[in-house]
Every structure is written in structure tokens, then in C-alpha cells.
């Protein structure tokens, strides 16, 4: 099964299953993601959305099936190897280092000095500095570089975490509810940010906010009970009676 043929997709998930004590949280899922595509996964609570991200980034090990990223099998790699292969993941609640400054948060995420001895000898040189400045301006936090990350607003924390991924230049960016807890204005800015960063890479987003999904999604997949219920353009999916029944209806 894992010997399946190579594809042009950035991400090719085939027949993926994970069960916890018999309960199948993800059930023979197949799913493909193109280059430069911004794909949103929606679905009711417990549909297995976050579990899919956990499987891709290696946090949870699959029971069977294959996950190929740029034709590289991910299912038997450990988390840090998957990250180094070029997959970045933002967690549902902002996961940043609250006691460090924005600058230090970005510096730690900079993809150099990742080994024990590399980190002992790591120097904050011009190259690092200019990359940090570049990312900081993208995520609108240039004026906050010296601020302790714990003092940022909820929305800014979300951006910082996205920035911590961007600084690694991942080919696949996975965002778990990136606009949760954001103000209307912050949502707009985030939509803009996502549209900008999806150029040159693939982005996989989990989101509940339909209005926001409609603004950013190239394609939408609806997940229900660990299986794909519907997939395609936002308008098509919204009209699908099955989808309306389980999710959009209430």
C-alpha cells in the first residue's frame, strides 16, 4: 500500500485510518492537496478534523494508510523530521512561548541550529535578523518585537504563531482555527495574510467561521465521523443536502 505511485500533489493522503480502542476517529480517508492551494476542512465537532492534522504532523500515529508529502512517506517519520521535511502546524489555542519576546519567539523558530551543538553555537547574525524583520512585517508585529509574547492580544498571538511557521518556509502550512477569538478587523487582516502566504506553498486550514471560509478557501472538504462527506468549491458544498443536514443546517 505504501508503495503507491508518486504524484504531483503536495500532499496525498490515501486510505488513512486511525482507531482508538476500536473507535475510528478517521476512517479510510483519502485526500489530495495541490501546490499553491488553500484548502479548508470543515465539519461538526468530533468529525476528526484536528485528528487529521495530528496524523499529518506525526502527533498521532496512524493505524493504517499512507500520507505522502512531496512524494515522501510521513507516517513513519517523527514529528521533528516531518517539520524539517517542510510541514508547519499551528495549534488550536495559540502555542507560543509566553515568557519570551516576539523577537525571541521568532528566533527560536528560525531553522538553523536545530541540533544540540548547533544551538549552543547559534549566533543571531544579519541573515537571521533580516529574516525575522521580514516575517515580523508580514504578520504585522514589527512594532512589538521587544514585547513579551504573553502580553500580546489574542489575535496577535495567533499571528505570531503563524509567523513562527513562516520563518521556516514550509511547503505545507496547517492552521487549526486561525481566527478563533479574533475581532472583525483582525479576521480581515488574517484573511489577507493567508491569501498572501498561500502563494508558493500549500495551506490547509481548519475553520468554523463560514464567512471567513468563503473568503479564503480555494476548495472545501467537509468531514463527518472521520469520513469525507463532500468536497469541492464552497458554493457547491454549501448546497449539498447531506452537508446541510449534518452541519450547516443548525
Amino acid at each position: 500500500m505504501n508503495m503507491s505511485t508518486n504524484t504531483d500533489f503536495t500532499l496525498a493522503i490515501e486510505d488513512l485510518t486511525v482507531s482508538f480502542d476500536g473507535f475510528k476517529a478517521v476512517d479510510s480517508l483519502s485526500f489530495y492537496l495541490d501546490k499553491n492551494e488553500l484548502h479548508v476542512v470543515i465539519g461538526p465537532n468530533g468529525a476528526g478534523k484536528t485528528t487529521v492534522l495530528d496524523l499529518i504532523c506525526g502527533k498521532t500515529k496512524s493505524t493504517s494508510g499512507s500520507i505522502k508529502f512531496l512524494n515522501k512517506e510521513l507516517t513513519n517519520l517523527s514529528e521533528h523530521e516531518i517539520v524539517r521535511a517542510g510541514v508547519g502546524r499551528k495549534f488550536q489555542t495559540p502555542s507560543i512561548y509566553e515568557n519570551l519576546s516576539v523577537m525571541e519567539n521568532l528566533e527560536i523558530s528560525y531553522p538553523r541550529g536545530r541540533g544540540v551543538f548547533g544551538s549552543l553555537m547559534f549566533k543571531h547574525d544579519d541573515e537571521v535578523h533580516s529574516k525575522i524583520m521580514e516575517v515580523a512585517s508580514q504578520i504585522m508585529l514589527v512594532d512589538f518585537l521587544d514585547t513579551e509574547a504573553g502580553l500580546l492580544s489574542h489575535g496577535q498571538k495567533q499571528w505570531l504563531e503563524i509567523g513562527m511557521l513562516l520563518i521556516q518556509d514550509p511547503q505545507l502550512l496547517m492552521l487549526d482555527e486561525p481566527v478563533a477569538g479574533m475581532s472583525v478587523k483582525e479576521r480581515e487582516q488574517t484573511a489577507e495574510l493567508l491569501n498572501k502566504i498561500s502563494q508558493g506553498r500549500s495551506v490547509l486550514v481548519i475553520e468554523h467561521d463560514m464567512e471567513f471560509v468563503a473568503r479564503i478557501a480555494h476548495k472545501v472538504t467537509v468531514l463527518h465521523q472521520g469520513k469525507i462527506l463532500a468536497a469541492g468549491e464552497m458554493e457547491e458544498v454549501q448546497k449539498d443536502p447531506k452537508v446541510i443536514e449534518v452541519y450547516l443546517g443548525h
Partner: protein
Amino acid sequence: MGGYSYDELGAIFAMQGFAGISLFSVLLLMALGLAIIFGQMGVINMAHGEFMAAGAYTTYLISSLTETYIPAFMPYYFVFSIVAAFLVAGILGYLAEFVLIRHLYKRPLDTLLATWGLSLIMQQSYRSIFGAREVSPTLPDWLMGAYPATDMIDIPINGMFVLGLTIFTTLAVFYLMFKSSWGLRVRATTQNRLMAGAVGINTKKVDRYTFALGCGIAGMAGAAFTTIASTGPTTGTLYIVDTFMVVVFGGAASLFGTIASAFSIAQAQSILEFFISGSMAKVFTLLTLVIILMFKPEGLFASKVRR
């Protein structure tokens, strides 16, 4: 083992097995208390051995008082002392939770240090009150002696009594944790403290009584302990490490795991002791456990859960 005949080996295993049953009983009672506290509340109680000692000293005290004032009561005092041991250790545990533990629930490593401090204070209290010498209660006659099963195998009566006590306690704990409404509240608090609070469970009260119950069971272990060895101020420390191993090896949240692990550890220790020195038996038992835990850190009976 070359020097022994098969009959002799069988008898040795049986005899050491019965000796191991007493150890098993004490370890299991200790571990039940510890597992409730650790498994349900995530608190490491380094003073658990001292709560056991509290039970043992209570038994000793009641024995001495009975012997001095109402000697006629001697045959029956032991049963009462088990209840008293439970209550004394339980009340001490209740107080410890109130004064100390409840402030540290979110800091498990700090709880470990604070309870270690508590254990030092308790040890020194025992030394100041009862002296540094080891003490033993006078056991009633019916607990002494052995029942000769075959001409090579004697079954010690105290061991059987303690085993009975352990089985009773284990069943009571099982009922309490898994069948009673109180147990349901404890388990609800374990799984989701916030939610449990929201549906009207007084989680603070649950914590306090859970801790007191765990310590009380340790006190009963102390009463049982007096039938197999004498009690000194540092008695508790000798058992705390083995008890932790029982809990960790069994998988912290599994009652069956705790029983199986207490049994295998006690028997391994006891049977090995006959063939090699006691200290080497301990080294082998603990080393085996550590190596197994390095390959299977979640213990033997942990269930796979969705993270």
C-alpha cells in the same frame, strides 16, 4: 538450583509464596492508597510510607493500652485497631490535604518535594514520641502460628488474615470507586475538573476525601504490616519505593494492573530471596522493573486514549 529435589523445590516455592503473600498484601494496600491519590489526582505522595507507619504505630498504641488496662480484650483488639489505623491515617491525610496539598495541585514536582518535607517531619515525630527503637504490638494468640498443610508446607495464619483483609479492602475500594455515586464523582473530577465543577460537584471536597481515603488505606496497610515485621520511624521509607514501582508498573489508573503488579513484585522478591541474598533479590526485582518500564513506560495495563 541444582542441589534441590523437585519435591523440595515445590515446597520452597510454596513456602516462599506464602511468605510473599504477606508482602503482597502490604504492598497492595499501600499501592491502592497511592494509586487512588496518584491515579485520580496526579499527586505524588512521598509521605505515603509515613501514613502507613501512622497506622502501624496506632496498632502498637492500642495493643499496649489494651494490654495494660483491659487484658481480657486482647483477643479482639486487633480488629478495632485496623479501624483505628484507618481513621488516624485518614484524618492525618485530611489535614495534610487541607494545609499543604490543595495549594499545589498544578505543580506535581513541587508536591513531591513538599510531601517529602512532610515525611521528614512525620518521621521525626515518631522518633520523638515512640523512640528510635523498633516496636511491635503484642499480637493476639489466634493470629500466631501456622497451619500445617503438608509435612513440608506450613501456612502462616497471620499471612492468611492479612490476605483476607486485603481482599476485603480491595473489593471495598472497587465498589467505592466504580459502583458508588461518590466514585463517579471522583472519576468525573479526574477526567474534567472544570466540567465536574460546572455540573455541581464540589471538586475540592472530592479531592480532600480522596486524599484522606488513600492515606486511610495506607494506615490499614500499617496495621497489617505489624503482623509481619516491627515498626520504626523509618519503616515507611523502606516501602515507599516498592510501592511506587507497584503503581507505575501496574499502570496508574488500573485497579487490576495494581493487583497484578503487587502480586508479581512481591512473589518475585520473596521467591528470589531464598536463592540469592535479600539485597540481590531486591536489586534484581527493581532492575527488571526499571528495564521493563523503559520499554513500556505507561505500565502494563494502560489503555490507549485519544489525546
